[in-house]
Structure formats: structure tokens, C-alpha cells
């Protein structure tokens, strides 16, 4: 039995499973239960789930009988404790910040799979929820900035004078940054982008953005594609070099994260003060504290000089239909990938490259190298 729970956080708009995936999983021979109302906010009514072959449970109690539990946000420690022993629980877990949760999962003898820890290999990309969500978040960041800006993005030469294109500066050219570049370019903005990884700059250029090149010395990323943390001197250098671009921009989007660490502060207050009134900053790293000094997670603040800083941590939640679609596909792909056709179960091969990366607890212990006490 696979159980997909409705999210408990009222701000969450996504669903862990959508009818399309339900259909795919039932065809694999998996019994799927979903909690009623799971897709209410993402435009998937309960009936469609039923049509797709799922049992719609009226409340979340069924979760405790399930072999596989899917959810998006991290579970409560109490909730983990009630699960069936040996159940597989797949969700975001924020393992770097939630050691207690990990211990609770281990204690409950639950196999906890962390979506964050899925390795970034070409093979695992289909299950990589971090990417699939960051991608939509990049789009949503630009759209939500556009709807808050007092200017338009594209250039227009009109009988009533020329409207010059908005200047957009994107810091951190990961998955989200790239999609933000693409979206802003589509809308006609002049886009500049910066990242510490040189190959990311080339990728930005491949989307038509101008790459800001700052010589920071050695800055290579990990083999997973994540960036390494900068030294304080390098950070200072970066801030200095990008300050002017920031100040002239109508929109700044920061996405810089360092895997497993607090995101670096890249835009200090002095730079924010130099920006024009009406400018907008979207800090996509707000969850971990933000790249911008003054960001408050999940809030939108306006500074004294009229700059709006958006600290939304659930940008992809603005497009819940598609965000749920790809997330659910990630879950579906993962289960399908490890599905044992014969036994009709999820095959937990801990030697597998992918599972080795993302299974954190198993058989009552924390098994992941990085989080072993």
C-alpha cells in the first residue's frame, strides 16, 4: 500500500501525487491511497483520483498502515513514530538542519528517503525533485516580481517615447537561476547573471543573458554540480564587483545556495540602499537565511528607499498544478525505477548508487555516511 498524504502546512498548495501518476503506479501493481482533498489547491479533484484508480481516504489515519508514504514537506517526529515499522517514507527532510527528525525516523525503524539527497547524476535526474521544483520556482520568481514591479520588462519604442527594457540581475545560475534567466529574457528584459561556477556562466550565455565575469580565483564546484563555499575574501570581492550591477538593476533575483550550508550573504544593505525606488529583489535562498541582507523568509518587505524584497520560500507553490505534476512524476519515476515487478514491492538495494545517496535511515539506524553520528 502506498499512501500519499495531504500536506498539513496550510501554505502548501502542492500535492505529492496527481492522478496521472496514480494511474502509472496502479498499472505497476501498487495499491494507491490518497488523502481526500490532496489536490484541492492544485486543481485535481478527488474524483479524478478515483477514476485513476486510487482509494481516497477521508483522513490521514491510513498512513500508518502504508508501506510507502509520500509527502512533500518534512513529517513531524510524532507522525513518524506511528508509521508501520519498515515503511518507506519519501519526502523533503532538510537533513542538515533536522538531526532530531532523522533520529526519530531511525527510532521508528522507518526507511526515510530524502528528496534533497538524490544524487545529481544524469540517471537520477528523473527523480530529482529539487531540480524540478527549483525550475518552476525560477519561473514563478520572475512572474511574481513582474506583477509587483512598477515597470514593464520589454523594450517598446512607441509613439509616446521609448520604454527602455528593465534590467534584471540574476545571482546564482543553478536550475532556478537558469529558468529565471530564460523567463526574464522571454519577457524582453536585459539580463545579466553571475555565478561562482564558470561553466554556469556559459550556460547563462546559452540562454542569451550577459554573464558577469568576476575573477575570484579558484571556485570549482563539486562533482555533483553544487558550488563550494567561498572564502570570506572571495565573497567580499564578489560583493564589490557585483554591487554596481545590482544598484542599476530593476530586479535582482538571488538563488545562491551552497549544498548543506547556510547560503552566503551576497547583497548587503548598502547595495540595497543604492537601488532605485520601485526595484524588486527576489531572494530565492530565503529559507536558509537568504542571500540578501534584510530578507525575511515568507515575507515581502519594502525598504525605506522603496525596494521590495520578496522572501517567498515556496515560489513553486504559485504554480501548484504544474509543480505537483512534476513532483508527482519524480515520485512516480523513483518508485518505478526501484520497483520489483515480481514481488510488487519497492526494492531497497542499498548498494545502488542512487539509493546510497538518498536513503538516510534504514532498519532502525541512520545509514547515510554524512549523517551518521
Amino acid at each position: 500500500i502506498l499512501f500519499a498524504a495531504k500536506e498539513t502546512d496550510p501554505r502548501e498548495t502542492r500535492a505529492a501525487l496527481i492522478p496521472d501518476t496514480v494511474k502509472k503506479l496502479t498499472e505497476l501493481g501498487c495499491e494507491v491511497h490518497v488523502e481526500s482533498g490532496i489536490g484541492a489547491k492544485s486543481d485535481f479533484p478527488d474524483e479524478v483520483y478515483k477514476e485513476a484508480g486510487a482509494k481516497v481516504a477521508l483522513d490521514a489515519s491510513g498512513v500508518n498502515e502504508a508501506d510507502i508514504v509520500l509527502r512533500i514537506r518534512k513529517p513531524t517526529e510524532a507522525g513518524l513514530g506511528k508509521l508501520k515499522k519498515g515503511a518507506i517514507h519519501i519526502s523533503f527532510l532538510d537533513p542538515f538542519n533536522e538531526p532530531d527528525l532523522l533520529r526519530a525516523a531511525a527510532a521508528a525503524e522507518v526507511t526515510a528517503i530524502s528528496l534533497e539527497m538524490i544524487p545529481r547524476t544524469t540517471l537520477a535526474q528523473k527523480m530529482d525533485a529539487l531540480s524540478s521544483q527549483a525550475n518552476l520556482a525560477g519561473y514563478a520568481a520572475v512572474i511574481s516580481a513582474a506583477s509587483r514591479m512598477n515597470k514593464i520588462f520589454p523594450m517598446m519604442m512607441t509613439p509616446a517615447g521609448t520604454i527602455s527594457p528593465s534590467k534584471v540581475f540574476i545571482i546564482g545560475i543553478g536550475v532556478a537561476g537558469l529558468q529565471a534567466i530564460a523567463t526574464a529574457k522571454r519577457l524582453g528584459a536585459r539580463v545579466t547573471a553571475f555565478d561562482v561556477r564558470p561553466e554556469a556562466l556559459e550556460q547563462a550565455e546559452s540562454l542569451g543573458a550577459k554573464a558577469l565575469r568576476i575573477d575570484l580565483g579558484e571556485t570549482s564546484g563539486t562533482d555533483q554540480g553544487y558550488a563550494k563555499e567561498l572564502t570570506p575574501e572571495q565573497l567580499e570581492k564578489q560583493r564589490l564587483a557585483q554591487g554596481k550591477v545590482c544598484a542599476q538593476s530593476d530586479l535582482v533575483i538571488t538563488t545562491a545556495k551552497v549544498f548543506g550550508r547556510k547560503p552566503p550573504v551576497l547583497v548587503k544593505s548598502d547595495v540595497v540602499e543604492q537601488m532605485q525606488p520601485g526595484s524588486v529583489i527576489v531572494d530565492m535562498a530565503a529559507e536558509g537565511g537568504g542571500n540578501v541582507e534584510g530578507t525575511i523568509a515568507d515575507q515581502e518587505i519594502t525598504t525605506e528607499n522603496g525596494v521590495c524584497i520578496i522572501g517567498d520560500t515556496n515560489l513553486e507553490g504559485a504554480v501548484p498544478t504544474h509543480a505537483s505534476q512534476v513532483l508527482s512524476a519524480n515520485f512516480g519515476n523513483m518508485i518505478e525505477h526501484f520497483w520489483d515487478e515480481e514481488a510488487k514491492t519497492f526494492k531497497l538495494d542499498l548498494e545502488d548508487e542512487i539509493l546510497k545517496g538518498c536513503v538516510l535511515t534504514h532498519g532502525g539506524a541512520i545509514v547515510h555516511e554524512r549523517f551518521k553520528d
Partner: protein
Amino acid sequence: MDTLINLSYIVSAILFIFGIKMLGSADTARRGNLISAGGILLAVVVTLVAAGLDYRFIAAGLFLGGGIGFVLAKRVQMTGMPELVALFNGFGGLASLLVGWAEYQSLFAGTSASESPKFTAAVIFIAVFIGSVTFTGSLVAFAKLSGKTKLLPPVLGAQKLINLVLGLVTLGLGVAFVFFANNGLGYTAFVFFLAIALVLGVFGTNPIGGGDMPVVIALLNSCSGLAAAAAGFVIVNNVLIVAGCLVGASGFILTIIMCKAMNRSLANVLFGSFGAATGSTGAEVEGEMKAVSVQDAYYVLESAQNVVFVPGYGMAVAQAQHVVKELGAILEDNGAEVAFAIHPVAGRMPGHMNVLLAEADVPYEQLREMDDVNAIMPTVDVAIVIGANDVVNPSAADDPTSPIYGMPIINVHEAKTVFALKRGQGAGFSGLVNTLFFRENTRMIYGDAKATISGLVAEFDN
């Protein structure tokens, strides 16, 4: 010995071939010029060594000629070069004429035997005739180019007819000459056709306008080559024949190419009196819409230094933005400065052109507002109007009776050349006639804008 001379001549012919070939490409042109000079040097040296001649004269002649040539070439201003070339060319023609004449004198005096006298007489006629026309024609070209037009006789009313008659007369005299070369009749004929040919050179060139002189010089250059070849036949010298003929043929092709680059046919240049007319009247006629082919447009664009695109609603209809961007990039690679002039009301919605050009990834830096571009318009070599109409209608500036009088427009008519790309005679949004299309400096390229631009791109790709 003779063999050696002739082998050397073969070598110098080869040097000429390489020289001309290399002159045709920018990278090698200078070396090509040197190589062909080497060819001449070789031919001259060999000839000198071989012929047991009176060296005094020859040395004197070479020094005199060389000195004059050197001084002229070194002292001329850069701007004076074309007329100098015309002058040199005239000298070359005159030299051929003289060689022919000298040979005729020898023949007449019976000192030199010829295998077939009629043939020799015929080639003498050709050498002298072409040489004369080249000589005086080049002198006229020289006078026109250096502004000494006062020296020239006025163009007669029925000039073309007169020229035709004179030409026929010369031909007749030539025939007479060939048949009576050995007696007094021949001599008379010779003197007469020489005189008439000289006059013909003047008459033929005189009506052609100063602007077309480069083409005329190229043609006369081709003629002087032919004259040299004819002289070669006269003295039975193969290097003269080969070099002269090479120059004659390549000069002719060059003439054709130059005509194409000016959007004209050779006949039009020679007999159209077009260049002269604009020179003299300057007035502006309603005229007609002159179409031009994609290929000819290519020649003009290829040499343009400063190109402005003026897109309008037609570009949107044709969805030509992608190819337009490509053409722009090609022109830039070709060394031209490229800009896109966006009129505020171009298209059918504010910013219509911006949407399309952004889609095609035209850099924002290349987009110019109307006022900025109008300031530099007189320096623009080619303005390419892509399906725009109302926004480039000069009536808005000129004609107070026009409904759009007073609207600022993009002054493409001030550019040196305008290419207007349209499908046909369709009017723009306002339904007005556009006088731009009737201007002297405008050429229409009919057809869907996308197809036309793709055609231009293809031409550049070749």
C-alpha cells in the same frame, strides 16, 4: 635563342595570369600586382637582350617614360588616382596605336615582310582603331574626373546618330585600308580612319556622366588590352597577344561587375547618358519605381559601410525577423556598421518591432530611435526598408497637403541608396502613395520580405 625568348614569354604570361588572379582577392592583391609587374619586367628584359637594337633610343625612352610614370604615380593625391589611371590608360592606347602605325609605315615602306599582308593590315587597323578610341576616350575620362570639363566640346544633339555614322565610316575605311594597304589609297584611308577614330573616342565618352567614369575607364582598359593584343598580332608576338587578351577579357568582366554593382547595365551606362543627366539637371522628377534583383542588391550591400534596416509592418507579416537578424550579422562580419531604425508607429501596436526583433535576438544596442538615426542618415550607404511604408513617406516632411504632413518620419530618402522590400504596389495603413519609392536613389525589391532577405543571405554565403 628564339626558343628561350618564347619560353620567357610563356613565363611572363603565367606571371600575368597569377597576377590578375591574385588582384581579385584582398589578401593577395598587392603581391599579385608585384608578380604581374615581374612579368612585364621579364618580358622587357628578354626582348631587350634578344633584339640587337639601337640601345641609345631605347634607354632614353625607358628612362624618360619611367621617370614620368614614377613622378606622376608618386606625386598624385589619393583622390586623384582614378583620373591618373585614366591618363595612363590613354597612354597605353596611344602606344598601341603608335606601334601599329610604325608597323604600317614599315610595311608600307616594304621593309618588313609579312606572311599574309591582308591579315596584317587588318590587325593594324584594329590596333590603330582601338588604340585611338582608347586614347582620346581616356583623355575625356581624365578631363571629366579631374573637373576640367570646360575643355570638352559640348554634347551634340544627335550624338548617338553621329557616332553610329562615324563608326560605319571608319569600318568602311578599314576595309579599304586592308585591301589597298600597299598603295596611296591605303595611306589616305589610314590617315582618315585614324582621325575619325580619335574623334569617335571623344564623342563616345563625352556624353557619359562623371559618375559613370569608373565603368568607362574599366571598359577602355579592356580596350587598351585588346589594342595591345592586336599590336601583338601585327608584330607576331605572343606575349603581347596573351597579356593583351587577358587584360581585354578580364577588363570586360570587371566592367560588367562594376555595372552590376551600380545597378545598371553596360548599355545603360554607355548610351543611357544617365550619369550625365543627374550631373547636369539635378532636378527631381516624379519618375518611376525602379526594381532591382536580389543579386544586384547584393553587390551594392557588399560594398556598403553603413547599413540601416527600417522594419515595418511588412516584416511582421512576412515573419522575416530571424533572417533579417542574420543578414545584419553577415553585414557586420563584412565590416559594415549595422543599425535598426525603429519608428515609433511602425507595425500595428506600440513596440511591435521590438517584440519581433527581441524574438530574433537582435541586440538592444543595434536598435536606434528615429531621431538618432535621422541625424546620421546622410552618411548611410544603404537603408533597407523592410515592409515599412507610412513611416518612411517623405510626404510627411515635404508635402503640406498630405494627411500625414507633420509626422516625423525616418528620413531614409537621405541615405545614399534605399532598398524598399515590398510584395507589390500595396499601400500602408494610411493608404497613401509613398513618393519614396519613386526617388532616384530608391530601388524596389519586390517579393515577400522573408524570401528577399533569405535570398540576400544566400548571396553572401556564396
